[in-house]
């Protein structure tokens, strides 16, 4: 028992301060959602927010946000500090980049870093990342042959200098996008939410009379590392291998992992994984680490908050030249279609260690059809005004050991969908169908979540285009432990015409796009399924 109440009080206060930091970054994320312009941020929640110490180590991240951003944004702050050392930063400065290799993996993600000052001294850094709607170039899609075709490339620069907007930067930004007002507004929003975080941090430091975050950081890191290591220690030691296939662009892609569970860390080696693609499905290493760590963490230590130390025990060996470690300037715009398979791959390994803690494979990759129309598709014949719109949609998740998979729900991504009524209000499109896809869940003791059926036309059935980014059409989500596979996806027209799963394609006048989203894999022997659940699914027309 502690005999020094002051030590005990200090320990309790550090916990309070930790909770406060998490509340501060949550406030930061909420302000971003309220003020952002891009539907991807404000409706879908494709963002992250966090606080860092002066060495670029993440202390806390907002609960709101999506995994692909969070863990990669964590690496990003170090790159900002390498170019702009903390000693030279001034109050009111904001730094920005969308460099896929210094940020979160594609040009559509903006990362903003802002120093926090107290009594004229820099005490910490706030960072956030948001997926914006447009950065020029070919637009969101896999067609680029290098990153230079994929859009405006922003190196790490100052967008605000001591509170003054860098007008040269904003001029270039506005000129390089199809949606200048929205993109500029989004940058303002990212800066405003970091400012709010900084204000709250300083209030907290005043309240607790803290001169620096150092002691608090050490205690957060110590507790997080200890808790993560304790969870790792509970796993059986050993080497576990798995692989998973993606439809790819030119050719199928195979991802391979060999996972070593040691006493104090988990190492993953990706040797044997397919090489680079000529199109934008390549994955920068930071994004690979982000989704792989997320997949491991969901199984091994879901309760431990995300920070620098809690992710440290997960080590990644990603061979150069494989699709999971794309070098600049390979195209990377839709790195998510491959990257979002990584949690399934990690669970494939962990299934051998802790079979009752993982799920079957799911639809995993979001089915987000970027739709475009007007003169940019139909030239002088266009019947519609120019539009560019994307909606986020999800197939089924993999069956869980004790419960069915979730129907039409995003995993591993943390995003939300947009209402059809809202989408139809911003673009001249009509969704004729968007509902569950009966029979698509893999059978099992617990079944996979169901995919969806979607049918989309333009208003007046005019010509429009889709920049397809779909996967799991040739490679269905697999079941585990005797459970069946989920139904594979399908991309085509309502008249039965089959379309390619990736790339820009025009839907002719009078035709409609039809998407069948994959179902999740099942788990366990279907004969062991609770008969009451079978009856329910039949009564509801789900199987």
């Amino acid at each position: 028992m502690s005999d020094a109440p002051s030590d005990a009080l200090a320990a309790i206060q550090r916990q309070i301060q930790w909770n406060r930091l998490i509340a501060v970054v949550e406030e930061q994320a909420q302000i971003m959602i309220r003020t952002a312009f891009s539907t991807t941020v404000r409706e879908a929640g494709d963002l992250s927010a966090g606080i860092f110490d002066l060495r670029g180590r993440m202390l806390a991240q907002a609960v709101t946000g999506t995994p692909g951003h969070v863990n990669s944004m964590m690496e990003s702050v170090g790159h900002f500090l390498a170019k702009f050392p903390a000693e030279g930063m001034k109050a009111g400065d904001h730094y920005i980049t969308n460099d896929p290799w210094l940020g979160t993996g594609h040009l559509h993600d903006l990362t903003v870093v802002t120093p926090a000052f107290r009594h004229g001294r820099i005490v910490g850094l706030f960072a956030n990342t948001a997926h914006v709607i447009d950065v020029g170039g070919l637009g969101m899609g896999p067609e680029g042959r290098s990153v230079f075709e994929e859009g405006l490339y922003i190196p790490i620069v100052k967008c605000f200098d001591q509170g003054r907007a860098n007008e040269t930067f904003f001029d270039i930004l506005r000129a390089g996008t199809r949606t200048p007002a929205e993109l500029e507004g989004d940058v303002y929003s990212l800066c405003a939410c970091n400012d709010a975080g900084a204000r709250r941090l300083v209030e907290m430091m005043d309240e607790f009379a803290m001169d620096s975050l150092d002691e608090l950081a050490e205690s957060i890191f110590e507790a997080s590392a200890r808790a993560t290591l304790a969870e790792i220690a509970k796993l059986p030691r050993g080497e576990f291998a798995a692989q998973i296939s993606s439809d790819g662009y030119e050719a199928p892609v195979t991802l391979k992992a060999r996972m070593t569970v040691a006493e104090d860390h988990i190492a993953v080696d990706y040797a044997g994984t397919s090489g680079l693609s000529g199109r934008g499905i390549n994955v920068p290493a930071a994004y690979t680490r982000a989704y792989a760590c997320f997949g491991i963490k969901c199984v091994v230590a879901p309760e431990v908050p995300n920070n620098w130390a809690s992710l440290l025990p997960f080590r990644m060996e990603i061979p150069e030249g494989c699709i999971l470690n794309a070098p600049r300037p390979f195209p990377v715009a839709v790195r998510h279609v491959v990257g979002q398979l990584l949690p399934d791959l990690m669970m494939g390994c962990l299934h051998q260690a802790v079979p009752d803690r993982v799920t079957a494979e799911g639809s995993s990759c979001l089915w987000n059809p970027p739709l475009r129309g007007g003169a940019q598709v139909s030239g002088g014949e266009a019947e519609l005004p120019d539009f560019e719109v994307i909606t986020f949609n999800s197939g089924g998740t993999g069956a869980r050991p004790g419960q069915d998979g979730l129907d039409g729900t995003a995993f591993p991504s943390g995003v939300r969908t947009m209402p059809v009524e809202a989408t139809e209000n911003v673009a001249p499109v009509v969704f004729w169908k968007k509902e569950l896809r009966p029979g698509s869940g893999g059978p099992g003791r617990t079944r996979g979540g169901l995919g969806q059926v979607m049918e989309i036309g333009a208003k007046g059935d005019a010509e429009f285009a889709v920049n397809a980014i779909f996967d799991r059409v040739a490679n269905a989500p697999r079941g585990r432990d005797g459970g069946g596979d989920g139904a594979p996806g399908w991309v085509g027209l309502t008249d039965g015409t089959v379309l390619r799963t990736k790339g820009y394609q025009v839907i002719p006048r009078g035709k409609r796009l039809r998407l069948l989203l994959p179902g999740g894999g099942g788990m366990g022997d279907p004969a062991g399924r609770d008969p009451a659940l079978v009856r329910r699914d039949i009564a509801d027309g789900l199987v």
Partner: protein
Amino acid sequence: MSGLRLAADIGGTFTDLALERADAHGGFERWTAKVLTTPAAPEKGVLEGIRVVLSKAGVGPSDVALFIHGTTLATNAVIERKGARTALLTTEGFRDVLALGNESRYDQYDLNITLPQPLVPRRWRLPVPERLDNEGRVLLPLDEGAVRQAVSFMKAEGIESLAIGFLHAFVNPAHERRAAEIVREEWPEISVSLSSEVSPEMREWERFSTTAANAYVQPLMMGYLHRLKAGLAEAGFSCPLYLMLSGGGLTTLETAARFPIRLVESGPAGGAIFSAFVARQKGWDRVLSFDMGGTTAKVCLIDDFAPQTARSFEVARIGRFKKGSGLPLRIPVIEMVEIGAGGGSIASVDALGRIQVGPESAGADPGPACYGRGGSKPAVTDANLLLGRYDPASFAGGAMPLHPGAAASAMNAALGTLGLEPPMAALGVVEVVDENMANAARVHAIESGKGYDGRAVIAFGGGGPVHGYRVAEKIGVNRLLVPSGAGVGSAIGFLRAPVGYEVVRSLYQRFRSFDVAAVNALLAEMSAEARRVVAEGAFGAALVERRIAYMRYVGQGHEIAVELPVKAMEAADVAAVRAAYDREYAGFYDRPVPGSDVEILSFAVTVATEVETPPPVAEVDAAPGPSPIRHQAVRDTARGEVSDWPVYDRAGFAPGATVPGPCIVAEAETSTLVGPGWSCRMDGLGYLELTR
């Protein structure tokens, strides 16, 4: 007429009654009662409570001029899934809108979450061919034969209530109305709820969910309300009956029976109105209402004497109060955040050696360990006891002696691994729960687009006065008020509520192409609708109308409410509204966005009877402070030090008397803690005002 007004609030455990009339000095004479809620037939509890409170006051039914009622019955029906067998007629191709929701998980890292099941199972979600576009034009006519077929199917399935929700029906309700007409031809007795009437706003999931919930509770609520009406008549009451709405206004029984979903949060709404009234008495224009009970704490922002309102709400959260784990309702509500932090919330240690408090609660039975009724897990009340904040012998006015030994053992058993003595562990528990509440208040203020800096806190409920000063410190607030009568605050709040009604409609507008005529026509129509509803119960009282536009920069996702003039607008008014938006926006987020147009998504019109202005509070002269009734050794949670805190009896306080902190002001239902650095004065209303 004697001017007696009666209010009843049915809660989960107790039904609270308040009866009052204005006294000669500008205050109120009041009687209250608490009886057990009778879930099987709630009107019985209400009638029994009424009997008790009338006999306390020595009056009869004919002396009561007005009866106001609020209830959690609709909420409970949704939470416990005890509503009607409900079907949904919907646009073909969109059968699963209720099941898909927003396709997200409310917890990113938990692989085993359960999502809330829709109130209408898939077998009763019945698609019919029809389709409107976003401007309300018909893309596909309504298939009337399919509607008739659906009716036969529903009859065969024993459906008891029907919701109709078609895409874009909020723009053009023609298909929904025609479908309802056909249903009523075939089946006159079925109750029908239309999405274009229940919640005429964009976003199909929220609108259908609200409509389905309305249909789900309608048969139950209609039955209850009519039984209550009959019971009251039988008991000899002839006064008008009003129902409390979630949005803070009162309405007639007929409107309540039509839109019962609008009654969902009426109890908590009463608490917020109580706070708003107290704020008005004090003349405080920026207040944070803090109501901490046994299992949850509720925080509500009150600006200019009106509780913050919102247009959406989540009911029946299944994931430990987590946002996104409930069913969305899009109705006018008093906006508050509710978290699992109350006197019964249980403390534990997580895998990281961090103290966690709640949301699990010891409830009333067995209750916290110190009640000595078999509870073995440490609750917040145990922690308060171990800090010396309660006197074991005089808790609850001496009615329930507390057991510090049991509290210490429970604390040791649950938190012993931290290596802290029970009093320090207790300090940790209280600091964590106070921090949780402060953080919830902060994030709530941000999500509502409001600040919390510089507010005053009004604390009530059993725990509010105990934890209020420390929560205030944590959010940087220097003023705290503990009013009297807080035990039945919601019922008293009902008596302060205006008769009112809010109509919300979507009509898309941009300022660069503002259609003044269309907006004026819509607002006039909404105003007439709201006035019609209110007129039934206003009895000629003066009406106040407010018009609001929900606005944002073109392309943004979240709107800010901007007040519109109550008249037919002209060009100059439109420009003024546009300017007001920029001011409001910059006020919240520092930076206006240059060059962006502004759009309006929807409009709201509220018509209500004028809120009575409380009589001016007489200034009171300084009075001598009371003498302590005892001293308690209390550990201060900010510094960890123990010192002797004097304890005063609230009843022994004279208006104008001031005592310095640290000290405790005790009363039967709760204790007000006055922390170090604070002082406590009783004002002319008998309220305790803490400042630092």
